Each structure stands twice: as C-alpha cells, then as structure tokens.
C-alpha cells in the first residue's frame, strides 16, 4: 500500500520464522511466528500466534492491543504481504465518548476490554505489530493486582460490543485466564514433545484437542494418530519452540466414533468450501498433521461442530466418559453437546471451558448467529465487488497521502463499507439472523471507524469465530467504515483580525448561536411535545410550517440538542435521533433508504428498506428506544400515491413503533392542500407555524449575535431589521445584509481604522441586494438595443397589444432610425440585438427558429423601460 512508504522512518524489519504452511486451496501461506528486528538489527523479538501484541495506531501513546490469531502471507495485497489476523481489545479511551458512561465506573488505567464487535476488521498488516504485551483476565469483581501494574500489562474484565459492557463469557475468561497461568505448564510440557497419542494424562483443555482430532479423523476418513498442540497452549510458548502440550492428547476412540457418524460425508462437503478466514484457526494442530490440510480441516471441524449435534452424539458420549480426566476446567459433563459447541467457539479464542448446562447450547448459538448475521453480508460479496472495493481502497489511499494516513485509512474503510450493497442474507437460519441484524445498532461500525484500528488496512474481519458456514470468499473480509471527506487544509484558517471580521464571523448564518432568541415559545412547544412522547414511550407526529429563514430547522435542532443532554442526565429515556431532508434526496422513496441507514447502518434498496422499516415499526418489542425523526422539506416527499408520506405518518400510530415524527415544510396548509385525507388524518393536528420575524425580533437576533461587539451603530441595526422585516422576515437575509455591510464598511475606510458600520453602509448593502438590475441594464445597453426597445414600445402602442412579432418591431425600428437619421440596421443585426436582449431576459422571446415571426414581449413594465430610456 502506498502509504507504507511514508512511514518507513524507523521501521523494524519483519520476517517470518519457520517454514510456511502452505494451503493449497487458499493459495496463501500461514506462519506460526514472526520475528521483528529493530532498525539496526540490535534487538530481535519474536511474536507467536496466540500472543498478545501491540498494534500501531494513530495514537503513539496508546497503541492498540490485540491478540494474534494468525499470521499469513497474502499475495493479493500488493504492498504489505505480511498479514495478521487479530482479536482486538479496546481501551477505554477508544470507546466513543458518548458511550463511555455505560461502564458506570471509572476504568483502571491498565484496563482494556475484549472487543466483541464482529463488524470490526481483524485483518491487519503484520508489520504494524510493534511488540508483545501481557494481558491478564480478571473476574469482574476482582481488584487489579497492583504488583503487575506496569506499562506492558493490561487487564481484561469486561467485553465491549459497542452497545454495552458485559462480563467476559466464562469460556472466554477461562481461556484468557488459562493463557496466563497455563503458560509455564506449557513450557514445561513442550520439552517433552511427546508423541503420545491417547495419553491418559490429558488433563485440561481437552475439548479443543479432541475437536481438532475429530476433525482430522473425519477429513481423512481414517484415524491418524496425531498429537496436537492446542492453540491456547502455544500462545505462551517461547520463540523457537514447537511445543506440544501434555494435555493435547487425542482420543482415538473419539475420532473413530465421529468417523462412524452418519453425517461424515456432509462434513467433507463442508470442508471443500472452507473460506480462508478459516485459517485463523489454531495453527497448533499443524505440528504433526500434514500441514497443507490444516486450515481446511479446521473449517471442516467447525462445520461439523455447528451442524452436527446429532451426528456427533456418539463421540460426545465418549467425551463424557472422559470427563473425570479433565481437571482444570470446571465443566459439568452431563452435556454432551457442549464440548463441541464450546470448541467451536474456542476456535477464535481456543477455550477450555465447557458449558455447564445444556441450556447453554441455545445461548451458544445466539452469539454465533449474531456473528453470522453481521459478517455474512461482507463475506458473500461477489468477487467482482471485492476487487472493486480493493481498488477503491487503494485509490482512496493514494488520494490523500498525508501523514495521518491511518486516520484516512480508517475513513476510507468506512466509506467502502457504506457503499457496500445491502447484505444478502443467505444463511439457513436467516429468520433469526435478520432479527439480529435489524437490531444491531448503526453505531458499531461507525464508532469503530473513529477509533480506526488497523492503520493499514484493512480488513478487520470478524474477530469472532469465523462463521460456521464457510463461504467462498477467496480473501479476508473487505474493510468497513470510512467517510468521504474533503481533504483538510494545509494551512490553518486564519481567525478574525478585527472587530468587523469578528462580527462577520458571528453574523454568518452558519454560526450557531448559543440560544435562539425570539423562538422561545416554539422551542418550548416542540420540546414539550417530544419530551412527553419520550416519557410516555409513545409516538406521534408534529407538523411545523413557516416561510424560509424563520428558524424552523434551527429550533428543532436546538430541541434535540437539549433533549440529548437531558437523556444524558437520565431525565428522559435515551432516544435515537434521525434527520432526513427532502431536498437532499433524489427521489421521495429514497427516504426509506436514508432512514434505515441512519437507524441501523444497513444499506438496502428503497423497497426493501421500506419493508424492513415497516417490519421494525410494526413488530412489538422490536425497538428498545424511541426514535425521533425529523423530516425537513416535507413537500418534496409528495408522490402520486403519497405512499411515502402515508408511511411516515402511519408508523407513529403503531404503539410499538415508538416513533416521533417532526415534519417541516414551508406552507401552512400543506396537509390540506396536497395530502389525501387519509394521510392528513394520520398527520394529526399537532401543528405549529413559525411566523416571519418582526423587525423587533430581527433586531433582537442581530443584537444577540453582536452582543459584545461594537461593530454596528444601533440605528443601522434597526434599519436593516425594518427593511428585511418589511420584505420577507427572513433572518438569513438580515444576516447577509449585515455581513455585506461590514465588507462595504471595511473597503470604504482606510485600513486600520475600522469604525462601526453606519446607516450609509447598510443602505448601500440593502440597495445592492434588493435592487433589480433591469434599469441599469437598459441604461448600459448599446444604442441599437435601446432603439429596439423603443421600437417595441412604439409597436405596442400602435397595436394596443403587449406582444408583437419581430417583423413588426423591425419595421418600427427602421422607421425610428429613419426619423433620427441613424443608419438602420440589417435584419441580421436586429435579430442579434433581439436575441441578446432575450438572453438577458429584458425581453421574452420565442426560439429564434421562428425568425421573422417570433413573438416578442417585454419582461418588465413599459414604464420602467421608458424611465430607463429617458434618463440620458
């Protein structure tokens, strides 16, 4: 990738250790460890799969923490071929500020969270890994051991899934816990390097081992006496060693049993469509099994776990029999199923913990389904779209090759994500998944992108277990999350230097005032309306009308701002705020797409989005919190059938929708005028209209904006307020006039002595903005053009009509010239004059193909023309 080169400054060199494990099907090679040699070759660090690592990010102070799941070489990435798959941990400071309060306590400095977000991209450039780190898992109530509080140690207590903090699931916890405690044991054991199969001494972590073995045997259709290293165990191994944990024994019986299971053939099938993402699986088993097969087998294994509860019953029986031998795990072994399920789960984080109860089985399924739901869309993407996305990503990178590459990267990722086609959900249990997907909040990906984890690249694929259904994606998942952005400026914008410039800044329409003067009543009404709906947990509609520039949208924004603060302070229940603008849509039905996207982050076609939204708003219990929807420029959502408006106002009437719709438009009688009865009726009669500002209000607005600035004379402010109030009552106009007046004032005075803006300046500005240019245009037109206008007037007078053909006007023109002794124009010249005047719209003319017969009309009153022509 292009920006790799920009960060070469003091890069260590990265190299693989050990021979690659080539996967024939997947065309890339996996490695078990990587060596990092710092610049001068002075120090060399080795990093294993399974270790916790620090990953370079935007923030040098706080590099990302992650667990290394897999190292592999990916030739499809042009620049950084060394890739790694990781499981992220998130620091408290990386969690978006708005969600930090969910923790409910002060986090410890060294505390990190298991990042449980499948949408997060876990595929990173291996060269961003900066070094190993220690991570210790703690029970939620445990106190952080003080003695371990050094820089390089982190503690995990909770997991964070972008919605809430949860305690680590038992298996996860045990797994992590195991890691740190088990390491010495592993180390000891690796010396033994025993080839013992069936060793009765297997004590812990049986599950994964068995699972792996199971896989082996099934795929090969005969039993291979293998001994495997559990990934978990390897994690703690020191470099260079190829350890075999003592607890990695394989029960031949088990494998045999599973071989006999009737569904074996199906597993085989499954194995053939294993996706590369499978490769994140424990590499441990490669030690003794034929290397190329490994990933595949893993996939198969998983497959079997997921699908074949029945089939493997027998094997489970065997496992159960074995239970007493498992010492370290507190597993209640009545459950036959769980070993496999648990094992499956552990393929990301090889887990040791068996689920204690049968009921857990269901639970185990749920996260998986969720995982599936979120990750499938990206996985199923067609090859072409993958390619495109890759290209896009690269080009985006080229686009802004600046120092904050990483940030940019994250953004582009997000962007791509957003442009991805809607997820096609192909999975078998799509019912459940869809549900899951729908309720996934939009935030995860976006927030993630702010954090921008992987500097280079990429693909943060699901950090979870690669889903049970292997997909054909030849590559790791494509990136998520990026927002298009105009590049930022190189030079900081200059601040205001004088009083006038400061005034101009605060007079700009975009300057958001602290409060909205003169709209207190409207503010209160809207606030009360929305607040009551929030408190009642119901929905409703409100229609807000008013001419442009009367502060409708600004007031609603202000209300939302206050309500959000109130929600923060727990005064009102939390709510989701969505804003759509009819003018920012290409077509009324696109409103569904926008709402859906802002609500859930999903992308869908208009029809599909409408269905999803309808489902969401009509299914009881589907929405946890109230949604406040602001529909600006409502009149543009009008369609022949009015189905868009109908839906927008119909949803809130469903009790379970909990939707509050605030509709804004210009005309007060819009509901009566353009809406069908059934639409207008659903809109209800909660109406509010914003009156145009009176001059006093405009004056107050200006005063409040210029509170502490002595830039305007009081008379001047009053003048402009009165002028604008008389014309339109548009606050924008008022501000623009004042802004222009400051410019006039500035240019009319000698620099360095900017005095206050006087009435004269304002008058000039008002004049400039409101006067029409017709008269000056006529005065400045050429002699022949003026004569032509005279001829038109004469012809109108002659015929008594307000319209004449060109031929008639031409004759008058010739006569006129004759009278005044001017050379009379040829037809072509007169025609040119006529079309010039027509282009300025002084005249209204027909297209010139009518030639002599084209009809001419004046676009301004005859009086104005006479007035303009007389003054010479």
């Amino acid at each position, binding site marked *: 990738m292009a920006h790799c080169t920009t960060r070469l400054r003091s890069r260590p060199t990265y190299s693989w250790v050990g021979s690659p494990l080539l996967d024939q099907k997947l065309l890339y090679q996996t490695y078990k460890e990587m060596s990092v040699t710092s610049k001068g070759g002075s120090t060399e660090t080795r990093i294993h799969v399974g270790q916790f690592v620090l990953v370079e990010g935007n923030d040098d102070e706080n590099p990302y923490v992650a667990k290394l799941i897999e190292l592999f070489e990916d030739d499809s990435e042009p620049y950084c071929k060394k890739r790694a798959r990781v499981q992220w941990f998130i620091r408290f400071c990386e969690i978006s500020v708005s969600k930090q309060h969910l923790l409910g306590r002060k986090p410890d400095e060294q505390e990190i969270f298991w990042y449980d977000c499948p949408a997060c991209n876990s595929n990173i450039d291996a060269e961003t890994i900066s070094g190993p780190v220690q991570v210790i898992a703690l029970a939620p109530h445990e106190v952080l051991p003080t003695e371990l509080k050094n820089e390089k140690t982190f503690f995990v207590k909770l997991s964070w899934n972008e919605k809430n903090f949860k305690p680590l699931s038992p298996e996860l916890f045990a797994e992590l816990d195991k890691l740190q405690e088990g390491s010495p044991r592993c180390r000891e054991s690796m010396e033994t390097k025993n080839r013992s199969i069936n060793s009765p001494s297997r004590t812990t972590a049986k599950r994964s081992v068995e699972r792996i073995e199971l896989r082996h045997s099934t795929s090969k259709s005969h039993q291979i006496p293998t001994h495997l290293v559990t990934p978990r165990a390897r994690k703690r191994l020191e470099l260079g060693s190829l350890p075999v944990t003592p607890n990695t024994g394989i029960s031949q019986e088990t494998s045999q049993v599973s071989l006999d299971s009737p569904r074996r053939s199906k597993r085989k099938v499954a194995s053939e469509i294993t996706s590369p993402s499978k490769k994140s699986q424990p590499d441990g088993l490669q030690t003794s099994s034929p290397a190329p097969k490994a990933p595949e087998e893993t996939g198969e294994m998983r497959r079997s776990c997921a699908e074949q509860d029945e089939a493997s019953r027998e094997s489970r029986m065997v496992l159960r029999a074995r239970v007493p031998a498992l010492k370290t795990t507190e597993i209640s072994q009545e459950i036959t199923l769980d070993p496999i399920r648990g094992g499956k789960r552990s393929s990301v984080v090889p887990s040791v913990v068996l689920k204690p109860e049968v009921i857990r089985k269901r639970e185990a399924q749920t996260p998986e389904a969720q995982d599936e739901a979120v990750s499938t869309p990206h996985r199923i993407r067609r090859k072409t779209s993958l390619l495109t996305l890759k290209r896009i990503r690269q080009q985006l990178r080229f686009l802004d090759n600046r120092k904050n590459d990483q940030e940019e990267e994250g953004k582009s990722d997000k*962007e791509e994500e957003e442009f991805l086609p809607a997820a096609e959900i192909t999975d078998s249990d799509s019912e459940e998944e869809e549900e899951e997907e729908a309720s996934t909040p939009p935030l995860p990906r976006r927030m993630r992108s702010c954090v921008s984890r992987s500097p280079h690249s990429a693909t943060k694929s699901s950090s979870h277990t690669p889903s049970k259904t292997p997909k054909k994606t030849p590559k790791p998942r494509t990136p998520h999350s990026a927002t298009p952005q105009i590049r930022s400026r190189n030079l900081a914008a200059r601040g205001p230097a004088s009083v006038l410039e400061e005034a101009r800044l605060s007079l700009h329409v*975009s300057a958001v005032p602290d409060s909205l003067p003169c709209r207190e009543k409207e503010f209160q009404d809207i606030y009360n309306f929305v607040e009551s709906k929030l408190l009642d947990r119901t929905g409703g509609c409100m229609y807000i009308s008013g001419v*442009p520039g009367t502060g409708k949208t600004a007031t609603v924004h202000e209300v939302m701002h206050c309500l959000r603060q109130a929600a923060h302070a727990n005064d009102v229940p939390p709510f989701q705020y969505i804003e759509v603008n009819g003018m920012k849509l290409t077509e009324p039905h*696109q409103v569904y797409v926008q709402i859906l996207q802002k609500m859930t982050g999903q992308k869908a076609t208009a029809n599909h989005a409408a269905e999803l939204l309808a489902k969401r708003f009509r299914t009881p219990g589907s929405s946890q919190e109230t949604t406040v929807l602001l529909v600006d420029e409502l009149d543009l959502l009008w369609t022949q059938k009015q189905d868009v408006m109908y839906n927008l106002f119909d949803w809130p009437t469903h009790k379970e929708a909990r939707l509050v719709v605030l509709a804004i438009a210009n005309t007060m009688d819009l509901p009566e005028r353009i809406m069908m009865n059934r639409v207008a009726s659903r809109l209800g009669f909660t109406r509010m209209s914003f009156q145009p500002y009176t001059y006093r209000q405009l004056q107050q607005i200006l005063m409040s904006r210029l509170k502490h600035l002595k830039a305007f004379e009081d008379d001047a402010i009053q003048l402009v307020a009165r002028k604008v109030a008389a014309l339109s009552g548009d606050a924008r106009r008022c501000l623009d006039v004042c*802004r222009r007046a400051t410019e006039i004032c500035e*240019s009319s005075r000698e620099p360095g002595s900017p005095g206050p803006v006087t009435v004269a300046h304002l008058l000039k500005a008002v004049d400039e903005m409101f006067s029409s240019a017709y008269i000056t245009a006529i005065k*400045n037109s050429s002699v022949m053009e003026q004569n032509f206008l005279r001829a038109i007037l004469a012809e109108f007078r002659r015929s008594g009509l307000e319209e004449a053909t060109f031929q008639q006007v031409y004759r008058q023109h010739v006569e006129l010239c004759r009278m005044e002794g001017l050379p009379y*124009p040829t037809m072509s010249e007169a025609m040119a004059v006529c079309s010039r005047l027509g282009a300025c719209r002084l005249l209204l003319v027909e297209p010139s193909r009518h030639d002599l017969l084209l009809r001419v009309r004046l676009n301004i009153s005859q009086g104005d023309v006479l007035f303009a022509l007389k003054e010479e």
Partner: protein
Amino acid sequence: MSSRKSKSNNLIHTEYLSQVQRILRERFCNQTSHTNLFGIQVQYKHLIELLKRTAIHGESNSVLIIGPRGSGKSMLINHALKELMEVEDVSENVLQVHLNGLLQINDKIALKEITRQLNLENVIGDKVFGSFAENLSFILEALKKGDRTNSCPVIFILDEFDLFAHHRNQTLLYNLFDISQSAQTPIAVIGLTCRLDILELLEKRVKSRFSHRQMHLMNSFGFPQYLKIFKEQLSLPTEFPDKLFAEKWNENVQCLSEDTSVQEVLQKHFNVSKSLRSLHMLLMLALSRVTTSHPFITAADLMEANQLCSMDSKANIVHGLSVLEICLIIAMKHLNDIYEEEPFNFQMVYNEFQKFVQRKAHSVYNFEKPVVMKAFEHLQQLELIRPVERTSVNAQREYQLMKLLLDNTQIMNALQKYPNCPTDVRQWATSSLSWL
C-alpha cells in the same frame, strides 16, 4: 505608404506577420485574461476579497455574477482565480470545481463531475456505488464532514447558472447553498449567468439560502473607453521579438485610432453592440487581411470587416437565387401586400406568377408547373418561406399554407444588388400593377 516601404524586406516581414497574427488571434479567441479590466475594477475587488475570505478564513459565501453575453464574466472569475492562486497561502489550500450548465445538464451528471474534480471519482462510477442517490449522499457526507477551520475550502464555479436552476427540484443548488450557510466544509458558490431575472428562477427555499450577493457587469463604458480598448487589443506587447516592427505596428494602431473613418466604423459597431466579443470579431476580420504585401491594418480593412459583420445573411441568399425563384418571391411579396400578411399557398403564388408571364408577351419565363413547384420547394428548403404551423400534414403540397420570411425592404435591397436582373422583373417588383 508604409506598405510600399516594407516591400523591400519582405522576408523578415513574413515571419513577424505570422507572429503578429498568432499573438493577436490568441488574444481575440482565447479571452486570455488581459492585463486591464475595463470598467469592472469594483466588482473585481469585491470578488477577490470574497474568494480570499473563503480561502484564508474559511468563510462560506455565495455570489452571482450577472451580465450580458460578452461582458467579461468568465474573464472576471478566471482573472480572480488566477490572482488567488498566486497568493502563497492559498494556492495549496483551495479546491476548485468548475461546472457548466450546458455540460452538466442534470444533477446526476453534475454530481459525478464534482466527485471527479474533487478527486473522489474512483469511488464513483462503479456498480457497487453508482446510483444517483448514493452519489448525492456521498458528496453531502463528504462536504458535511468538514468544518470551517480544518477543511480545505472548495470553490464551486457554476457557469450558465440559470440552467442549473432548471434541474429537478434544484437539488444541487439547494444543497450547495445549504452547505454555504451551515457550518460544514467552507465553500464559495459562484454562479455566472446572463439572465437578469435569475433570482426569480430560484425556488423560495433555495433563494433564502442564497446570500443575495450579486455582481452586475453591464459593459458600462462609453465610446472613448471603447476606443482605448480597441487600441489596447490591437497593440503588440513590448516583448515582441522585433522592437522596430512592434513600434511601427503600434504607431499604425495609434494612427488608426485617431483616423475619423476608423472612429466612425467603431462608433457604428459600438452602437450595435458593446460586447467586447463583437469587437474581437471585427478585429479578427481586419487582421486576416494583413499579408506581406499589406503588412499593416488600414481603415479600409476595418470598414470592410464592419461591412462583413453587419451583412444581412438572408439578402445574401437571395443574391444566389435563380430568376424564377426571384420571380416567385416577388409574387409572394405582392400577395403579402394585397392580403396583408395572410399566409399563401403554392397555387396562389403560381397564379400570381402566371399573371405576370401572360402580361409579358414573350414567354421567356414560361415554365412548366412542376418546374415552378420545384423552385418553390427550393425556397422552402432555404427557409425563405416556411409552412404555417398547425397545418394538416396531409394537405396537398400545392395548397399548404406558407409564410414569407423576408421583409419587403430586404427583397427590394436584394433585388438592387441582384446581378443581371431582367428589367421587367425589376419593374414588376416595384409595382404589381406595372402592366397598367
């Protein structure tokens, strides 16, 4: 005088003259921003201040530059942008987007063009992400992300602004103006248009978001200034390789501008149109008459050029017609006189023509009816006559109602110049009753 002198050093002149032609033609055609802005210094100052504020302070603005065709709108903005880009702080800090209403005929195309010019195009145009709706939300998102102090200002120049106002819902304009009035990426929207009623074209909410800054370029100079412009446009620059020739050339231009006949020509031209573009046209025609044997522009050249400029195109067509066709036109003229501009058909014209032929004993002009029909159709093809609208198509050709697209004065003028016009035809033209 001078031409005779120069004959001696013909060879040198050839080279210089081709250079002169090149320099001046470039100047006339490309509208290269000239050193002097004629009569628009105030507007220029306003515009450059505005652009600088956008570029340096990140202040969003919108402005319309309004003026008739050829009044220098594009020159003004190009000049301002050029100067802006020469400012050191600015050149790296500003993005420009140029749109033209004649090219970007709808918002979809315009959005694509914007994305392309902002260098975001690689994301567009793909199947995955190519629909109009997506493009719009993409651009809006891109512009929304920015803020006043950190984002690179974007200057949008919308040429033929009035055509953008005809786009559906004025979505593009609304969004551009909305951004310029909200705390997003700083943008300056500059619209160029020749329509004085442009604000009436904007929808009320679009209009409300527009800042109502208007700059009018009205060609508000008088004839003395026009003369000065003429002089300046024709003079050679000081960096011309041969100083001596340049001096001579400029001297000649000076002489020309003082010549009364030249002034007359220019005055006449000025009276027709104040647009500098038409002046360029005049000078171009005069310049093309410059050769080695005729190395300096003379008053005669200018007069000739003026004549070419003001020539009536239809009269020229009439000069090339056959006598029969002329006769038909005369017949139509008489019909127009008699029936007061009522439409006629072929049969009427033919009858009128037959009357004329019968009056004259010698039947030189006695053509078969199909031949006359053919001539009539030829006139129609030349668009000297055109069928009246709303006539049924299935009417017989002879009876299709037609209107003459020539004025009486044009016909009479053309006849006077018509080569070898038979006397009796000319007499017939002056009076339909000449046989009396």
